[in-house]
C-alpha cells in the first residue's frame, strides 16, 4: 500500500518488472499456445481478412490487396437478384420446419428413455439411437436414395408388390421438405436427447415422491414437475437454434438436392458454393457469404444478450 502523493523511486519500474517476471514464468505456456495461435491466424483469421474481396474485382494474379475496389457492387447485385430471395426463402423455410418438427423430437425421446427402468435396456436403446449421428450425411443420403429409389427401392418394391406404380420420391419438389425433416430427425434425435437426459437426472427425486403422496398421476407429474424443470434447458437450446436460422444444413441439402427440386432446395450455402466454386464468381459469392455470416453473428450476439438477461445463462 502506497499512500497517495508519496513517490517511491523505482516503484513503477518494480511493478512493471513483476508483471514481466510473471509473463516470463509462464513462457512455456505461451510456447504451448504458439502452434494454436499460428494455426488460427492462418486458417481462421486470414480468411476473415480475405472477405474484403467481396468489395473487389478479385483476380488471382493481382492478389487480395492488388485487385481493384468495386465498392458495394456485388451486394447490390444479389439484392437485385430475384433468385437470391428464393434462396433466402428456402433457407428460412427449411430452418423453420426443422425447428418446428425437429426441435421437440429429442425431448420426447429423452422422456421415453427416462421412463425405462431397466438400466441395460436403456443403455442399448441409447447406443442404437446414437448410431445415425456418427455416420456421414453421404451414407445417410445413400440409404435414403436406395430406400426411395424408383428402381427396386424398398418403398417402391413394396408398392410394386401391391400393384401400385413407382414414385420418384427424391425428384418431387413437394416431397423435398418432408424428406429433409424426416432424415434430419432420424440422424439427430438420439444425439440431441443426451442433454435432456442429463437434465432429467438432475431433477430432485423428492419432488416426485412428494407429488405421489399428494396423489399425482403420471401426466400431472410430467406437466407439473418434469417439463417445468426442463424449461431452462429447452429455452437455451431453442434460443441458440434460433441464432442458427441461416444454416439450413449444407451437407444434407447439397447431397439431397437435384435439378428437379432446385426451386425449393437451393439454400444460401449451396448457392454460395455454386456461384463461387463452380461458376467462378468469387467476389459475388463472397459477398453473399459475408451477408450470411454477418447476420448470423448479429443474431448470436443478440440472442446471447437476451438469454443473459432473461435466464442468466449465456455463451460468454
Amino acid at each position, binding site marked *: 500500500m502506497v499512500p497517495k502523493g508519496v513517490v517511491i523511486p523505482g516503484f513503477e519500474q518494480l511493478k512493471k518488472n513483476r508483471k514481466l517476471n*510473471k509473463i516470463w514464468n*509462464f513462457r*512455456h*505456456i*505461451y510456447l*504451448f*499456445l504458439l502452434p*494454436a495461435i499460428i*494455426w488460427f491466424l*492462418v*486458417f481462421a483469421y486470414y*480468411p*476473415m*481478412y*480475405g472477405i474484403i*474481396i467481396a468489395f473487389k474485382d478479385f483476380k488471382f494474379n493481382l492478389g487480395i490487396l492488388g485487385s481493384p475496389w468495386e465498392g458495394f457492387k456485388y451486394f447490390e447485385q444479389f439484392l437485385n437478384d430475384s433468385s437470391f430471395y428464393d434462396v433466402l426463402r428456402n433457407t428460412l423455410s427449411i430452418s423453420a420446419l426443422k425447428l418446428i418438427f425437429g426441435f421437440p423430437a429429442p425431448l420426447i425421446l429423452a422422456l421415453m*428413455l427416462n*421412463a*425405462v*427402468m431397466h438400466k441395460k435396456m436403456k443403455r*442399448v*436403446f441409447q447406443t442404437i*439411437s446414437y*448410431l*445415425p449421428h456418427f*455416420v456421414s*450425411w*453421404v*451414407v445417410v443420403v*445413400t*440409404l435414403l*436414395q*436406395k430406400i426411395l429409389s*424408383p428402381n*427396386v427401392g*424398398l418403398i417402391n*418394391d413394396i408398392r410394386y408388390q401391391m400393384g401400385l406404380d413407382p414414385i420418384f420420391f*427424391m*425428384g418431387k419438389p413437394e416431397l423435398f421438405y418432408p424428406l429433409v425433416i424426416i432424415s434430419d430427425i432420424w440422424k439427430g434425435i438420439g*444425439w440431441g436427447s*443426451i*442433454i435432456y437426459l442429463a437434465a432429467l437426472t438432475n431433477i430432485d*427425486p423428492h419432488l416426485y*415422491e412428494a407429488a*405421489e403422496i399428494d396423489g399425482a398421476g403420471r401426466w400431472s407429474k410430467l406437466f407439473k414437475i418434469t417439463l417445468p424443470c426442463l424449461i431452462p434447458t429447452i429455452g437455451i437450446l431453442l434460443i441458440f437454434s434460433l441464432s442458427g436460422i441461416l444454416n439450413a444444413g449444407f*451437407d444434407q441439402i447439397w*447431397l439431397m438436392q*437435384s435439378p*428437379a427440386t432446385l426451386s425449393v432446395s437451393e439454400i444460401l450455402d449451396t448457392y454460395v*458454393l*455454386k456461384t*463461387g466454386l463452380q461458376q467462378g464468381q*468469387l467476389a459475388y*459469392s*463472397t459477398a453473399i*457469404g459475408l451477408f*450470411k*455470416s454477418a447476420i448470423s453473428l448479429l443474431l*448470436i450476439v443478440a440472442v446471447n444478450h437476451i438469454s443473459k438477461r432473461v435466464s442468466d445463462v449465456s*455463451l460468454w
Partner: protein
Amino acid sequence: MGVRRLTPADKMYMTLNYSVLLLFCATALYPFIYFLALSFNDGYDAMKGGIYYFPRVFTLENYDKAFSNELILNSFYISIARTLVVTVASVFLTALLAYALSRKGLPGRKYIVFFFFFTTLFSGGLIPTFILFRQLHILDTFWVLVLPSLYSFFNAIIMKTFFDGIPDGLSESARIDGASELSVFARIILPLSMPVLATIALFVGVGVWNDWFTGQFFIQNENLQPAATFLNKMISEASFQSMTSSSGNSGSAIQNMTETQMELRGVTPEALRMTFVIIITTPIICVYPFLQKYFVKGVLVGSLKE
C-alpha cells in the same frame, strides 16, 4: 424409487413406451440391415426386388470386387491415413492448447480465449478459405486433407473443462519439485485425462472419416480421394444414370469410375454401392459404443459454458 405396485394403467403405459422405443430402434437400425442384406446378395438377383432383411442369393462377390478394386482400396487407404494422422496430431495439439488455457494466472488469458472463441462466431467463409488454400499451395495435396482439420476450439473447451477438474495439488507439487510445464503436462495431466482424450479422438476421427467435402472440392487427383468423397461420386453418378443429370458435381472422375465399374463384371454398380456403405460404416460401429460413457460427458460439458 419406492417399491410401488404397478397399476394396470402403469403396465399399459410401460408396454406402450417399450413398443414405441423398440420401433424407434428398428427404424434407426433397419436401413443398415437392408444394405447389409443387399451387400451379401447377388446384384442381378437383387434387381428382382423382394430382399428386405436377409440375402436371397448369398454371395461374397461384392466384397471381393470392392476389395480388389484399386480406386476403392486407394480411397480407403487415403481415409485411413488421413484419419490416423489428423486424430493423433489434433488430440495432441488440442490438449496442448487446452492445458495452456486451463493454467490459472496466465497473464492475458481473457484476451487469448477471446482470440480463439471469436473464430466460432464468425468465419471467412468458403471462397476466402479456398483462396487461402490456393495461396498455400495445398490444393490437390494430402495436406489439404490434414492441416485444416487440426484444431477445433469447441474440442479444446471440452478438454479444458476436464483439465480444470483435475486437482491443482498434483501439478503444483510437481512444479515445486522442479518439473517443467512439459513434464507436468505429459506425466500428470495426460495420463489422468484418458476419458476426454478418447472422446476428442472419437469426435475428430469420425469427423474426418465422414468428411466428403474437402475431397470433393479441394482435391482433383483421383488417387487422393477419401472414401466418403468416393461414395458421394458413386451416388451422384447413380442419380446421373437413373434420372436427369447429377446435381452439378463435376464430371471427369465420375466418367472414369463408370469405366472401372464396367470392368467389374458380375457385380452391379448398385450392389457395389451398398457394399461400400457397409464397409465405410463398419469402423464407426466398431468404435463408438465402447466410448459411450465418455462422450456423453463430453457433449454435456461442451453444451454448458464458454
